[in-house]
């Protein structure tokens, strides 16, 4: 029945993403209501959000600034000097006014771009059609009730920026890469906390397929509200499979909204929110055009940070870090802040050394203490001191690790600890030679074995020297003296 031979058609995928980012403002988009996540139901709802008659919206300026920053970060060709709000009319319990305030005709940001890597590792530019401001809806809960749904309006009216890409993405992997890049941008800008589980970063994907070479787009479906990067990839892939299978068996794609079921790894049609999708958009008459000048836009430029891509470039080109290390640091905002602060203070030491210690011993220490680097249990100044001591040969690497832990415990500087505990490296060859001679004398048989080629004995002697010197012996010196013996 369905034993078709594999198709001769080469299919290509066309994906566009609509990403909703919740902005990290204190108050809501149109009222001075708290936006904090996790409040108990309906405690963060003003008369406006409840759509009490006679209430009116007043626009939160922070939202405007954040939207402009996003536009600047993606090199938007248009940051609108005049943008307007429109009403999107539909009935749903999570939208009490019976309309959502959004921006259709004159959005704040248009025509930006960002770069991802395609499957061959080459740069691919993805165009961002628009980013506009709109309000979030409330939530409904079903668990507690048999025949009812409970409506919680806390989230209603929270400001969002909806970011709409052109259908430039050609695979699920590219879609995820794009989504991650947007995530990086908004979190590094500090305009969104990017918490997918909490719903402050949500993604809808428009997916269609067409035979390679065909100009027209195939019918698309919309996959809604997928709340993890992993699920985005799986959902898109399973949807692509479904569409191809359907088309190859002679079927047609229905334009519809589908939900991803993670347990079954399949998509299924969503019960339509509105039977007739006529939103009857028109400009909101309670709000006036938002008019700004170039100076206002320029004033936001100072808030655009160095993004990871630029950081990676700087770390690899100027600071000579390995690409992989550069990536890890660049994508971790607090880590890169710490690293950059350290690098600024280094005199003798190489940034590489700092990076290695950060990514190695210090990260492990932080993990073990369940702490965050920005808590500054060890300050960047102290950390710098440690790296410098290492570079100056004051201590060995092994000792540096010990000192790190002691710094955490005591809050003292590296130099103080080295002095107090006599941890300075022993590099004096005379001293080392006499220690080594003594050990050799006390371990004649091992020495003979070593001389006869047993390399395990070499390590034995190194170990003994270390033991004797409490780890302070300069390992390189020890090795060279032993080799000469």
């Amino acid at each position, binding site marked *: 029945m369905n034993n078709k031979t594999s198709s001769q058609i080469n299919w290509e995928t066309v994906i566009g993403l609509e990403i909703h980012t919740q902005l990290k403002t204190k108050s809501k988009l149109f009222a001075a209501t708290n936006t904090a996540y996790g409040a108990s139901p309906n405690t963060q709802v003003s008369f406006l959000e409840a759509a*009490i008659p*006679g209430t009116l919206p*007043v626009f939160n300026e922070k939202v405007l600034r954040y939207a402009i920053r996003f536009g600047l970060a993606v090199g938007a060709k248009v940051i609108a000097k005049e943008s307007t709000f429109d009403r999107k009319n539909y009935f749903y319990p999570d939208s009490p006014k019976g*309309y959502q305030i959004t921006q259709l005709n004159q959005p704040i940001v248009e025509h930006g771009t960002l770069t991802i890597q395609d499957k061959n590792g080459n740069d691919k530019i993805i165009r961002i059609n628009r980013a506009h401001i709109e309000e979030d809806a409330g939530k409904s809960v079903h668990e507690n009730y048999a025949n009812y749904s409970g409506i919680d309006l806390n989230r209603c009216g929270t400001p969002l920026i909806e970011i709409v890409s052109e259908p430039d993405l050609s695979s699920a992997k590219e879609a995820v890469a794009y989504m991650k890049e947007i995530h990086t941008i908004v979190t590094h800008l500090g305009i969104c906390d990017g918490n997918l589980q909490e719903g402050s970063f949500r993604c809808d994907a428009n997916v269609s397929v067409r035979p390679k070479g065909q100009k027209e787009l195939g019918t698309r479906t919309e996959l809604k509200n997928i709340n993890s990067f992993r699920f985005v990839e799986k959902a898109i892939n399973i949807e692509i499979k479904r569409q191809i299978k359907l088309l190859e068996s002679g079927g047609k794609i229905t334009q519809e909204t589908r939900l991803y079921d993670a347990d079954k790894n399949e998509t299924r049609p969503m019960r339509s929110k509105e039977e007739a999708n006529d939103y009857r958009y028109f400009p909101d008459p309670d709000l006036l055009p938002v008019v700004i000048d170039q100076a206002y836009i320029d004033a936001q430029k100072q808030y655009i940070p160095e993004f990871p891509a630029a950081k990676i470039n700087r770390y690899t080109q100027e600071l000579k870090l390995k690409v992989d290390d550069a990536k890890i640091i660049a994508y971790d905002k607090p880590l890169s802040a710490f690293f950059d602060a350290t690098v600024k203070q280094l005199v003798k030491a190489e940034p590489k050394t700092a990076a290695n210690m950060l990514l190695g011993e210090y990260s492990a220490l932080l993990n073990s203490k369940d702490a965050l680097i920005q808590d500054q249990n060890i300050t960047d100044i102290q950390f710098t001191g440690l790296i410098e001591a290492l570079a100056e040969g004051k201590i060995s690497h092994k000792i540096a690790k010990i000192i790190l832990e002691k710094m955490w415990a005591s809050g003292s500087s590296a130099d103080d600890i080295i002095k107090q505990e006599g941890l300075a490296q022993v590099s004096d060859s005379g001293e080392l030679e006499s220690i080594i001679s003594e050990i050799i004398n006390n371990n004649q048989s091992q020495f003979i074995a070593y001389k006869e080629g047993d390399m395990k004995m070499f390590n034995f002697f190194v170990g003994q020297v270390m033991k004797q010197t409490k780890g302070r012996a300069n390992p390189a010196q020890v090795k060279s003296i032993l080799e000469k013996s």
Partner: protein
Amino acid sequence: MEFNGIREIASALHTKEISVQELHDIYHQRQYSKADELNCLINITPELAKQQIQSSQALIDSNQANILTGIPIVHKDLFCTKDHHTTCGSRMLENFVSPYDATIVDNLNKAGMVTMAKANMDEFAMGSSNENSYFGAVKNPWDVTRVPGGSSGGSAVVVASGLSPIATGSDTGGSIRQPAALCGVTGIKPSYGRASRYGMVAFASSLDQAGVFARSAEDCSIVLSKMCSYDAKDSTSAQVKQEDFSKNLNQSIKGLKVGIVSEWMDSLPEDIRNTTTQAIQKLQDLGAELIEVELPTAHLAVSAYYVIAPAECSSNLSRFDGVRYGYQCENPVDLNDLYVRSRTEGFGDEVKRRIMVGTWALSAGFYDAYYLKAQKIRRLIAQDFSKAFENVDVIAAPVSPETAFEFNAKKDPVSMYQEDIYTIPSSLAGLPCMSIPIGLVNELPVGLQLIGHNLQESIILNVAHQFQQITDFHKQVAEGYYE
């Protein structure tokens, strides 16, 4: 005890000739005896009045009172009054108790006014006859078989029958001016944005304005001054300083240029035209110069308005869905049933008709042809007025094409919509305008409309006051009622 306006009442209060309580009781008694037969009130607010009587008396006793302290007022039931019913004349909000005060109510409360009741109105401010209230039609005291006009019919009647010296109203397409004309009282709608819309239940957001009914232009000016203020809670509130609109009342209008729209005058029935002409003649007697003005696009105003207003209202009224407040149908079987039945049962026919018109006008493919087009015509009409005001200071015009008509006379909605043919153009342009009584035709009141340029309330009030200094029409009272 009869008073000749706010100044006289205030004087009596301040000289202790009468206490606030006694004053209140006079109006309360009048309401008690006449409100039901005219059906002009929906709810009375005795507890609120009691508090306000006490506090205003205290202010008078300690010489801290202003001219409005202790003066009674009735608010159109479109304005939210905290902890009191605000029904908008609708079953949908029959039991709705507002959790906050509208800004204009708050302003007048702070000025010391005493809220006695909420006035009946056409449901959700949609109508020109006050026949569309869930709580029954309001009757015109001049002839109880006739309509008072709408949508602020209740408020106009309250003042016309002497049940309160002051009432608030709202005007979107003529809802203050037309009932003022039909009931023989003075009514003013300020420039769009002058009075805050916060707490005024929205009908058509870009047109709605709060205003005042009183027995004289002077009284209107005193109340309007306190009512209007810039309000940060209303994004459409005009960022202008609060003004004393009574400051120029006594200025002579000699040399003032008054525009006449011949097209409008010519379209009036003869008797109303004569009365209107005579009134305008009086302005000339006061020294005003009459100048012809043209409003070439005004004939399309009603058509444009009936796209814009229903479109905005269809969206503004979507919040009335039975879920969070207001009327909910019995035993809804599912969500859609809850919405549909609550709305179908909760709204009256005219409201539903306008929601349908608005929904249609905004529906897919129609936006450019209707809403956008109507807004362009609006721009042209506003430009017509601006051009006219280059040559004149004020425009004198008719208010209504007829005097108060009988109940059920206008079954066809379009014929009802045409009642606002002279009032809608200045609404679309957002201009300040008012109606003053200019006499009777067949024993029914007729009004004269005065339209000013943007923010020129004090000019039209000046003209009105000067007219009222040499005439008595504004003092005429229907037989059996109070001044």
